[in-house]
Each structure stands twice: as C-alpha cells, then as structure tokens.
C-alpha cells in the first residue's frame, strides 16, 4: 500500500497530466466527431508540432509559450492542406481507405523526421523547466500547471467556436447529416478541411504546452495516440467537455493505477476503463445518443 500522504499530491499531479492528455485528445475528438475519421497520423502530427516548437526555441530563442502565436496557425494550414489534398481525395467514401492513408501519412512523417531531424531525443531548456508551484503540499511543475489551464482555455474556445460561429454551425450540420448540409449549400470539402485543420491546430497548442515538460524525438507521438483515443471514447466522440473531463479522469486513473498496481501494470487501469465504457456506455460520458 502506498503511503497515504502521497495520495493527494498524486491525484493533483494526475489532474495536471490529464490536462496535457486532454489537449492532445481535443484535436482528435474534433476530427473524429466531425469526419468520423480514425486518424492514425495524430501522433505523427503532434510530433511535427513538437519539432516546430523545438526549432523555434533552438534556432530563434522563441519561448514555447510565445510559439503559441506561430505553431497552431501553421499546424492549421498543414491540416487543412492534408485533408483537402490527400486524405479527402483518398477516402473514396470508404473508412478503411482513410485508415490506410492516415497510416501511410504517419509512416511518411515519422521517417522524414528521422531523416531530417535524426533520432536524438531533444529537450528545451526554459527558465521555468524546473519551477514548481506548491498546492496542498504537492509540488506541481509550473509547465504542467500552464498546460492544465491551457487545456481549459482551448476547450472553452472550441466550444465557443462550435456553438457561436457560422463555421461551427456548418461543422455541426455536416457532422450530423452530410447530404442535408450539402443541400443547403455547405461546401463539404472546405468544411471538412477546416475541421481537420482545427484538429491539427489543437495539436499545435498541445505541442507548445507539452514540450517544456517533455521531450521530442521522431517516435514521441506514439505514446500519446492510444491514450488520446481512450479519452475521446470515454468523453464521448466529438465532445469537447468530454475530452476535457475524460483527460482528467484518465490522468487520475493512471496515477492511482501506478500507485496501487505498480507503474507498469497500472497502465491496465486505463484500458480496463476504456473497455468498460465502450461496452456499457459506448456513447461516452458526454456523447450524444448514437
């Protein structure tokens, strides 16, 4: 049994880690909810975002948080182009084609990164890398607290965008009823690409907030994909609130699993929750009825 004194710090830490997970999952839930795409390239795109942040820092001395002004827009453009130029064209209306093409893209992106950036693990050194904030006797690393707040803000912005803008209404209409939306004059290809671009832009935000407490190498994305899928399912596909709450829950489950079952076996908790939710409540905690 773990020492009871560390349970509270562990939960608090799990929450902040969960905030990071939620950031990665927000983009995924948008893409999944609207395009119904299981995007295998999500991890590879996160990795690209992390490299962008890294090089901005290493070459131009731009702080990762300042990079928030640069990386997400660039990632948006990339995502828009990928969906419009490749993924949309390759789908031919079939799920399995999207699966293959995003898989192909992830192989390409990861290995191009390997070729150009080499396989070294890189980290950024910021003045606040080692700073902590003390809450209830727990030392919470400053970058993770920022990421936690960032996740809240990003989720709120996405929610505003979806509910209060024309684009958001078009996206929701398209997600619900494709043919009907097209009948009323929505340019489906454009809106799909906008959604994919937004999803990838979320990864850009995640990259800026993640790198100060993490590292980047060509394979780094793989470690986040599965967990992001878990969160999306747990929260309900397409739900931003769900992704946020799901991320926090998974963060805490992971922390508690690690504490009570051991760090390796404790990963089991995440997948068991995943399976149980899928079986008993496949629409997730905040998902619309299927």
């Amino acid at each position, binding site marked *: 049994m773990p020492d009871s004194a560390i349970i509270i*710090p*562990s939960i608090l*830490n*799990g929450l902040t880690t969960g905030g990071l997970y939620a950031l990665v999952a927000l983009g995924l839930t948008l893409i999944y909810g609207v395009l119904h795409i299981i995007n295998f390239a999500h991890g590879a795109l996160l990795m690209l975002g992390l490299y962008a942040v890294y090089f901005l820092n290493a070459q131009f001395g731009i702080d990762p948080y300042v990079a928030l002004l640069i990386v997400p827009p660039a990632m948006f453009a990339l995502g828009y182009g990928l969906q419009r130029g490749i993924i949309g064209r390759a789908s031919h209306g079939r799920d399995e084609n999207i699966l293959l093409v995003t898989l192909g893209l992830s192989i390409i992106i990861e290995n191009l990164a390997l070729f150009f950036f080499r*396989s070294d*693990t890189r980290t950024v050194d910021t003045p606040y890398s*080692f700073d*902590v904030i003390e809450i209830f006797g727990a030392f919470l690393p400053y970058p993770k607290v920022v990421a936690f707040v960032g996740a809240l803000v990003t989720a709120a912005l996405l929610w505003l965008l979806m509910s209060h803008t024309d684009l958001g209404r078009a996206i929701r209409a398209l997600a619900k009823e494709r043919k009907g939306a097209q009948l009323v004059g929505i340019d489906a290809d454009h809106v799909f690409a906008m959604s994919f671009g937004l999803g990838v832009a979320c990864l850009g935000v995640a990259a800026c907030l993640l790198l100060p407490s*993490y590292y980047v190498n060509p394979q780094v994305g793989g470690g986040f994909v599965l967990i992001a899928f878990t969160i999306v399912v747990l929260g309900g596909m397409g739900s931003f609130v769900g992704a946020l709450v799901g991320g926090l829950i998974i963060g805490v489950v992971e*922390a508690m699993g690690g504490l009570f079952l051991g760090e390796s076996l404790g990963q089991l908790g995440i997948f068991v929750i995943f399976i149980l939710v899928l079986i008993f409540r496949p629409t997730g905690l905040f998902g619309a009825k299927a």
Partner: protein
Amino acid sequence: MADTKTTKTNSAGVRRRDFLATGAAALAVGITGFPAILRAQAAPVKIGLIHPVSGFIAFSGSQCRAGAEMAIADINAAGGIKSMGGAMIEAMLADSQGKPDIGAAEVTKMTEAGVHGIVAGYSSAISLATSQEAAKTNTPHVVDVGVSDSIVTRGLANTFRFGPGYGKVAEMAVANLDTINKAAGSPAKTAMIVHEESLFGTGTAELLSKQLPGIGIEVVDVIKHANPTRDFTNIALQIKSKKPDLIIPANYYNEYVLLARTLRQQKIEAMGIYSVLGGAASNLQFVNEFPEAAELIMDCNHWYDPKSEVALARRKAAEAKGLVYTYEVFLAYNAVAFLADAIDRAGSTDQDAVNAALASSTWDQHGMPYGPTKMVNGQNEGAQPVNTQVQKGAIEVVYPEQFASAETVFPMKM
C-alpha cells in the same frame, strides 16, 4: 535479389548503398596515397553491420552504425587487413528497423552476398535473432551491445560478445557500490530500484534486488515502469515517501531525462543516484543539457578507459565528426575492430578459421578497461563496466581504481 548479388570487382555488384558508404572511405584512402595496385589485388573483406537505424531505438542504432563505420574507416586508412595483402574492409549496411525478424532476414541476404562477418544488433532481442540466423551458415557474428546473457549461453560457435552482459554488469555494480559505500563509512543502508519494463531493465533489476541485500543494502521497493512513461511524478512521490538512501535507475534515455527532471522538481534528496546500464554519468548529451541535474550522479555502465591513449584519440575523432560519444559508439567500434583483428590473424576469411581466431583472441587495442581479450564460450571474460560520476560537468571514471580519473564523491549531499 539483384541487390544482394555480388561480384569480385570492387563496386559493380555490391549493394549500392554499401558502396556509397564505403566508397567514400576507400576514396579517402586512395587520396592519402596507398598503392592502388595493392587494393586491386586483394579482394575486399565484407563486414555486415545490422543496426536499428529506424524505429523506436533508432538513436542507439545510428550511434552503433557510426561507431562501426569509424572502425572500418580507421582500419582501411591504416592499410586494411595486412595478412591478406592489405584487403580493404567493405561495410554492408542494413537496417533492422528494431525488429528481430527483419534483422534475421538481413543476415540471410548478407550471407548470400558473401559477407565474411557480421556485427549486430544493439538490442538483445535482435542480437538473438541475427546470431542464430548467422549460426546456420557458421558466419562469424560479433554482438556489439545486446546485454542479455542468453545471447552467449546458447552454445552458438559463431557468436561472440566483446562487451559485458548484464549478469556481469549487475555483479560489478553491486561489488563497486559496496566498496564505495564502505569507503564512506557505510552511510547507505537502503535503495530503491526504478527500471524500465523490457528485457534489459527487468533483467538487471532482478539481479540487483537479489544481490544488494548481500552487501547490507535493503531494497525498499522496485518500481517497474512502461516505455514510454509520460510522467514520473508518481514514481518520484513514491521515492519521496520511502526515503531510500540510494536511487538506482535502469532505463532508457527518454525516461531517464524525465525521471531526473522530476526528482529535482519534487526536491528529492538522496545520498546517491546510481544508475546501472544507462544514466547521466555515461551520457554526454545529458551532462551538456542538464549540467546541474547531472552533477555527482553515478553510473555503472560501459565506458572507455580514460587512461588509454587509444580511447582518448577515438573519442576526439568521433567528436570531431559531430558525434555524441555514447557507449554505443565505442562498443560497436570495438566489435568491428575485434572481428577485423581476428580476420587478420586468421589470414583468411574462412569461417572456421575466423571463428577460431575470435575464440582465441588476446586483442588489446580496444581502449576499454578490459585487459587483453579472453573469450570463454563466446563471452569476453575481461569485459566489465566501470563506475563513472559527473563531476564539474565532466564524466569521470571513479572506480575501479586502476582506471579512475577522479575520486568518488559519496554521499553526494553532505
């Protein structure tokens, strides 16, 4: 397969990529003025280098390849295999992508293309696959890094390992720790092991937790973690609550970076951080990037002999090329040089002769703290890890004494 066909001429049939790699070295030799006629007479000696240069362990794989290629360039520049009329060594390169099945398939291709010896695999899983495939044709196979002891205990007559296995490393880690601890008046009484979940971490941790009680150090907890572990705060909290005198990590670089950073954030103080097979004190990248976090950390790992001229010259040459001088580089370098020496002594590329020469090797131009090579069942008995410590931003060997470049500072918090 067209790409594995080979002919006697120097370049025509050699796989294009191999030629590209070795061609440059050969060219360099040509320019420095070795008699061209000599090279034309001697058929090249082909050494296959199989490393995971893509995939999850790509960093270590590329480091291995870089070290091995340096060795080949050096040997060729010094006149090639002398007993064979100055035959040049030609590298055949292959990428195992981190997968044992691909590694084994590359061995098959290479043996058909007439490879004379193979240096592989970095990971234990891949080394197991490549060595047993090479054994089918009795092709000499030198393992560069794979630390699992099963690699050399299977009775394969073609398989040799120049560096130590994890059995030896764990034994030395415990023995050296005992000496260091006793010299300081035995302040350390408890330890906590934090290891990664695959073969090397698990195997090492098992051996350590069995042997540490024997030197009066109680293992208060063993924490096994996944690769990747995205957050180490939980582990740091557990360390904090158990307050071990020593923290003993055995994990890969990515996880080590996060662990070390988290230990600092959580303000955890111990008498020592003592890594086995990995860690800050055998990783120049870490020391350069996190000098404060690295200070006074100790490792028991592969390292070169800091008093050896050969070793220092090699490090300088490697760093001049922009390489970070990690243990993969010099272990792979030595694996190739060890094989080349055996071919030289065998005077031919006959497999039995080379295997016999490998088995009876007394080669000592390795710059490692090993002494002359002594192979027993394919394992170099003299191979051993050493203890290193980060002191004032540099990696110093602190134990055993005959190789030490500095005194041990222990405990690290006064």
